[in-house]
């Protein structure tokens, strides 16, 4: 039943026209807001960036295209075009013939098609019929003859059709060949032109794809862009790198290339290009598809940090380097501090921190200079002594500071107290940090004026520190091991001592400069202590005994034995004893022990294991000295002095600091910012902490036992950057094991060697792997400096090297050197590691070598002859007697060749003679075989023979080789000549340079021990050992 309409109009509760108007307006607003939403959703920074990049790319491509066109459309091109025209004209003269041939082809085409089809059909029938026949043979022998007949019929048919097809194709081919002959020249020209213009055409084609035309706009317009946009988020999935959220690993998906489009593309290196569009500055190491860290498997965020999936400047976690940059970013990109981002991008100056996570097993980081410097400081200052760092712990570093086990016999008590009070006052560049009188004891309010209460705290802190310094020194003196420093009679010549100090190479590790600033990264000369002021620190007699045999005083010292003659040692000691401490150091007031404070400190330590009563009773038993020693011992434990110094009673003590192995990944909220207002980032906290280690105690009211303990290392800004890079690099791995740099046996051997080299400061004197040789700057004549160690593994026999490193004998090879290789007292393990290190660097055979090379007398004789011809003996002595002969200027000599057979590798000798300039640039050894125009070594000897002065030599060579031709061939070949020279030189050490006996067994192949040695110069590999490194 239909509902009845209301009898009379019902009043509306609302005014309907008003509702209509409201609906109109609100609907309008919603529509506007909806459009706004689409606009906001559509407009993303990365789209703008991609568009801008396309324009930039288009511009560069256009320039490339234009340049390529310029290059392609040269005179040659015009000539080719002219030739092409003439070729075409020539073809025109054969018009009639061409027309006929084309007609023939035209006729043939359907016939070939039909014949081909017939052949294929017949072949199909034949295959089917053959199966039937085979089936009949196997299963239905009766019907086999019938099947055979029809198969035969088909076989014949197939043959006919094959033949017909072949005939038709042949006709076709002949006609085509005639046409090709006519067109041949034109075709050649066209191909040449095409090849010459390929670059231009490719660039033009690419330029076409970069145009932002209507189709591009349409594809990328709002809503339509869901179909197939060309502007899109780019990402690379990194299953081996993950974000660790505990109990779960989220694989990284790096979207950085959405904006950094050209990061892995060459051609955008120009520094004028905005950073976001630029090529990665180190493409050969990172990001590049051919580098060892391609972007497809390493991405960006695993090293740089940052939010992998982010596609906007802010959310990616870009971190400003400076406050100025922060302001600029805030203005330009709405950047703000993101407290939720636990792993923001490392500021650019710390970028190298990203390397350490995977490369912690390496000793040096030559490719990452800031990190390398940072690690050098962390190792050198002994950070690892208090703070466990897994990567360094595995390297088993020696303690940083000197042993204090016998300190009482070495230094005066007052000196020790002043030294602990302020080490930098004694030596500006010392590694020893300042523990006492730091701001949390004597300046608790920081830069703002202290309140009265704080003033009192400062005074108390000063007294506490005074008492502590005294107590520590008392313990060290009291527990110092008894030892005698026997008095040395006589007086040395200080002036001679000063000269010796410079000549013997002491300056490879030591400075004598009261004003020196610490530099552990630029020079290797601050390895040992600065000797300035040493005369105030210890006595002449102690210095004498120490430098005469350092290991006798302290078996663990790194100081080597220079094998000084007693009188030389005395001279040096005499000189060093004259070096006195700066006046400011002697002016430091000696700390005064406050007995009340001492008792309080002692009570605190006693109460860690006892009740108040027992503790007091225990203390009452001690006299003042006893309490001082007791407090000193506990303070040494409290401040961790034993982390750097060997101290009696602390042989097995555990480090006191926070472990730093994963400090770079530590959650920021776990860092105590105290009352200091800083941006809450790891780098800001670490930097502040390193700069002022006690700053987070500012305004705190705490007892001495609760105060921060980290000493002040007086870092410079540069050092802060470097150390911070290292500390930020101590990160959680958060990557699969396979991406970590794993050392193969050779690399591991090299790292072992590098570690020993670093720990013994070999680079203070020698250039090794391209680094070091700091002492060279002090030696006027480069040839008088310690040798550059390059290609050592390929050069010397491992046996010899082993023996030499164990007990160096000076004066045998280069007697003119005043600088002496010291005796380091390496262990067997270290000696093996070192010899293997050098052999591995140059990929040389290790350890066994053939000793009795058999030389053919002919080669030996030729070598001897060339030896004389080149006047090698002018510089190279052939025996000790040669060197000591009267009238010989020892300083101008070259290495003694008597040693060659026992020291050098057989094959290396020839290689060295052939190209000494490549083995050791700057060597005094003349390059007798210069490189020719083709890059191959040439021998000028062949030409010499024709000169009239050499008639006698010519005769001799004729006799040796039988014919002029053979002699010239020998002398013209650098390889042959150097091999012969080698054979002669070898004989010097073996039998004094006499002719070898005719061999009974075939000679050993020269290549046998030289498999992986540097290839001859022709291969274009210049410096052998520099390339052998990494």
């Amino acid at each position, binding site marked *: 039943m239909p509902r009845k309409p209301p009898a009379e109009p*019902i*009043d*509306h*509760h*609302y005014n*309907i026209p008003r*509702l209509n108007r*409201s*609906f109109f307006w*609100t*609907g309008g*607003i*919603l529509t506007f*807001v*909806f459009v*706004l*939403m689409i606009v*906001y959703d559509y407009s993303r920074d990365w789209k703008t960036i991609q568009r801008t990049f396309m324009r930039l790319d288009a511009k560069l491509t256009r320039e490339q295209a234009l340049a390529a066109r310029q290059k392609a459309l040269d005179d040659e091109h015009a000539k080719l075009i002219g030739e092409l025209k003439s070729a075409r004209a020539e073809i025109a003269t054969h018009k009639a013939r061409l027309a006929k041939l084309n007609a023939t082809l035209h006729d043939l085409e359907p016939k070939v098609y039909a014949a081909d089809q017939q052949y294929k059909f017949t072949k199909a029938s034949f295959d089917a019929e053959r199966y039937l026949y085979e089936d009949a043979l196997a299963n239905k022998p009766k019907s086999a003859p019938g099947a055979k007949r029809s198969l035969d019929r088909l076989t014949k048919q197939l043959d006919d059709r094959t033949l017909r097809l072949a005939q038709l194709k042949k006709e076709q081919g002949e006609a085509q060949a005639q046409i090709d002959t006519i067109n041949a020249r034109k075709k050649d020209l066209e191909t040449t032109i095409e090849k010459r213009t390929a670059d231009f055409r490719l660039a033009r084609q690419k330029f076409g794809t970069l145009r932002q035309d209507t189709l591009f706009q349409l594809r990328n317009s709002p809503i339509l862009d869901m179909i197939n946009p060309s502007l899109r988020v780019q990402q690379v999935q990194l299953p081996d790198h993950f*974000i660790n*959220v*505990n*109990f*779960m690993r*989220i694989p990284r998906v790096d979207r950085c290339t959405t904006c950094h489009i050209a990061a892995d593309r060459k051609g955008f290196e120009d520094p004028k290009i905005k950073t976001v569009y630029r090529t990665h500055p180190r493409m050969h190491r990172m990001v590049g598809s051919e580098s060892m860290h391609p972007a497809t498997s390493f991405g960006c965020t695993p090293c740089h940090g940052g939010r992998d999936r982010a596609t906007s400047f802010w959310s990616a976690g870009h971190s400003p380097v400076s406050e100025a940059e922060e302001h600029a970013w805030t203005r330009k990109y709405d950047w703000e501090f993101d407290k*939720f*981002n*636990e792993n923001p991008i490392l500021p650019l100056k710390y970028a190298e921190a990203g390397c350490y996570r995977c490369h912690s097993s390496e000793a040096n980081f030559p490719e990452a200079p800031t990190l390398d410097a940072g690690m050098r400081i962390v190792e050198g200052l002994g950070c690892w002594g208090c703070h466990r760092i897994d990567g360094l712990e595995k390297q088993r570093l020696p303690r940083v500071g000197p042993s204090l086990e016998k300190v009482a016999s070495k230094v005066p008590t007052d000196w020790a107290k002043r030294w602990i009070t302020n080490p930098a006052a004694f030596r500006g560049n010392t590694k020893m940090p300042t523990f006492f009188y730091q701001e949390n004891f004597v300046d608790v309010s920081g830069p703002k004026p202290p309140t009265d209460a704080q003033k009192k705290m400062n005074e108390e802190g000063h007294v506490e520190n005074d008492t502590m310094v005294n107590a520590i020194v008392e313990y060290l003196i009291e527990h110092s091991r008894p030892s005698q420093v026997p008095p040395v009679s006589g007086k040395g010549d200080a002036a001679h001592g000063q000269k010796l100090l410079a000549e013997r190479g002491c300056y490879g590790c030591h400075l004598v400069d009261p004003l020196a600033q610490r530099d552990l990264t630029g020079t290797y000369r601050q390895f040992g202590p600065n000797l300035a002021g040493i005369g105030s620190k210890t006595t002449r007699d102690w210095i004498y005994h120490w430098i005469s045999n350092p290991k006798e005083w302290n078996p663990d010292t790194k100081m080597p034995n220079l094998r000084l003659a007693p009188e030389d040692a005395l001279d040096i000691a005499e000189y060093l004893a004259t070096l006195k401490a700066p006046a400011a150091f002697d002016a430091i007031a000696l700390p005064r022990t406050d007995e009340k404070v001492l008792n309080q400190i002692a009570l605190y330590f006693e109460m860690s294991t006892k009740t108040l009563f027992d503790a007091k009773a225990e203390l009452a038993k001690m006299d003042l000295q006893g309490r001082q020693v007791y407090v000193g011992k506990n303070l040494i434990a409290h401040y961790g002095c034993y982390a750097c110094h060997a101290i009696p009673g602390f042989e097995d003590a555990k480090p006191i600091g926070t472990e730093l192995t994963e400090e770079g990944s530590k*959650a920021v*909220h776990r860092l105590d*910012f*105290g*009352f200091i207002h800083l941006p809450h980032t790891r780098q800001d906290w670490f930097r502040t902490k390193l700069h002022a280690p006690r700053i987070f105690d500012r305004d705190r009211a705490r007892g001495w036992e609760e105060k921060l303990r980290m000493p002040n290392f007086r870092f410079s800004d540069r050092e802060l950057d470097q150390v911070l890079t290292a500390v930020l690099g101590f990160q959680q791995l958060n990557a699969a094991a396979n991406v970590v740099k794993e050392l193969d046996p050779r690399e591991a051997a090299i790292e072992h060697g590098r570690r020993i080299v670093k720990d013994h400061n070999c680079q203070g004197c020698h250039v090794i792997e391209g680094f070091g040789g700091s002492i060279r700057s002090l030696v006027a004549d480069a040839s008088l400096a310690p040798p550059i160690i390059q290609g050592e593994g390929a050069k010397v026999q491992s046996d010899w090297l082993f023996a030499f490193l164990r007990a160096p004998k000076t004066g045998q090879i280069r007697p003119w050197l005043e600088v002496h290789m010291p005796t380091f007292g390496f262990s067997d393990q270290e000696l093996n590691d070192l010899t293997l290190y050098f052999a591995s660097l140059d990929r040389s055979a290790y350890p066994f070598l053939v000793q009795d090379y058999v030389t053919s007398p002919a080669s030996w004789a030729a070598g001897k002859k060339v030896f004389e011809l080149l006047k090698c003996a002018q510089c190279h002595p052939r025996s000790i007697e040669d060197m000591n002969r009267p009238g010989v200027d020892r300083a101008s000599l070259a290495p003694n060749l008597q040693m060659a057979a026992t020291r050098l590798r057989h094959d290396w000798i020839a290689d060295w003679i052939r190209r000494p300039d490549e083995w050791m640039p700057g060597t005094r050894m003349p390059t007798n075989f210069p490189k020719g125009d083709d890059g191959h070594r040439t021998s000028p000897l062949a030409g010499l023979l024709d000169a009239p002065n050499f008639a006698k030599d010519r005769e001799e060579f004729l006799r040796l080789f039988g014919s002029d031709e053979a002699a010239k061939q020998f002398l013209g070949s650098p390889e042959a000549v150097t091999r012969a020279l080698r054979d002669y030189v070898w004989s010097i050490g073996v039998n004094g340079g006499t002719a070898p006996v005719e061999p009974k067994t075939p000679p050993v192949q020269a290549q046998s021990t030289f498999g992986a040695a540097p290839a001859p110069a022709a291969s274009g590999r210049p410096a052998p050992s520099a390339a052998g490194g990494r």
Partner: protein
Amino acid sequence: MNPITLLKNAIDFLSAPQYLVSMALVGLVLVIHWRPMWTRKGGIVLLALVAGGIGLSYLDPNFNKVATLPDNVPIVGMIFLVGFFFWFAMSQAYENDRRIAQGRPPIEGEDSAQKVFSWPDLVYVELICLVVVMAVMIVWSIYLKAPLEEPANPTDSPNPAKAPWYFLGLQEMLVYFDPWLAGVAFPSVIIVGLMAIPYIDTNPKGNGYFTFKERRWEITLFLTGFLVLWCMLIVLGTFLRGPNWNFFGPYEFWDINKLVPLNNINLSEIIWIKVFQRSLPNFWLFREIFGLVLVGFYVAVLPLLLSKTLLRRFFEKMDTPRYLIGVSLALMMLALPIKMYLRWIFNLKYIVAIPEFAFNI
């Protein structure tokens, strides 16, 4: 000292939970009886006070930092929304009371005499509301981005770790009650209790119209629960609870180092050690006997006592089960402020503490 700083310090001091809750409880009872508040003029003054106070507070950097967090903006909105509806309901109620006193029907009575079609009168208005709400939500979502954080890491929880805004009242209860009670028992009772209200409160007065006079007790009780113990605790949890769940005044800097002593002791310790000066008995029943008796009194005896005295009127009006359930629910609700005061005055941790069964009250 600068008067503004002085005022801020005073507000910081007074917004500590003990004062805030006390003022809210007393203030609520007073204000619902204060007629001028529920006129149009009173509403405007109230709005001006709240909006002006909050608006000026935005000038304070510490307040601004907390109140402008995308998480917290809706809570500021909630203050206004809840405030408006509170005022609206009360002003309607007073108006109706006046009309009823004059012998006229309530406003809603006149309205309901009139009949209109659902279209356009209802649906059209709803549509317009829908459009407006959508527009507002879209604009909101454009300008205040969702405050998304890093993937959750169980070893790296944020400080303060806050529940979603609607649970902040419950989280505040956790300060005073055992997690089993505050986190499990009470929320269940709240839900069941709210569902039970229509069955307990069978008073037909106020059905379909606002009134205060006719339902004084019920309204006071409900508003105490809803406004003070729920909405206000949400506001407190949002704006006044900072790192380590410490209390911070609205203008105070959220300093992570702030330390507040939390030396709370159990009732058994107060009685046995402080009063009797004896060591605690080993047997839990003996040890906790006073607390158990007290709780037993509160839940079992008190309703009966009340039925004879204070709530006699209700007991007579309602049947016994209704009365008992209703009073139990009300007492449970009031247990929260009671426990709060016990904590603030006596540092009381638990009235009954039986760690043997992980049972604490």
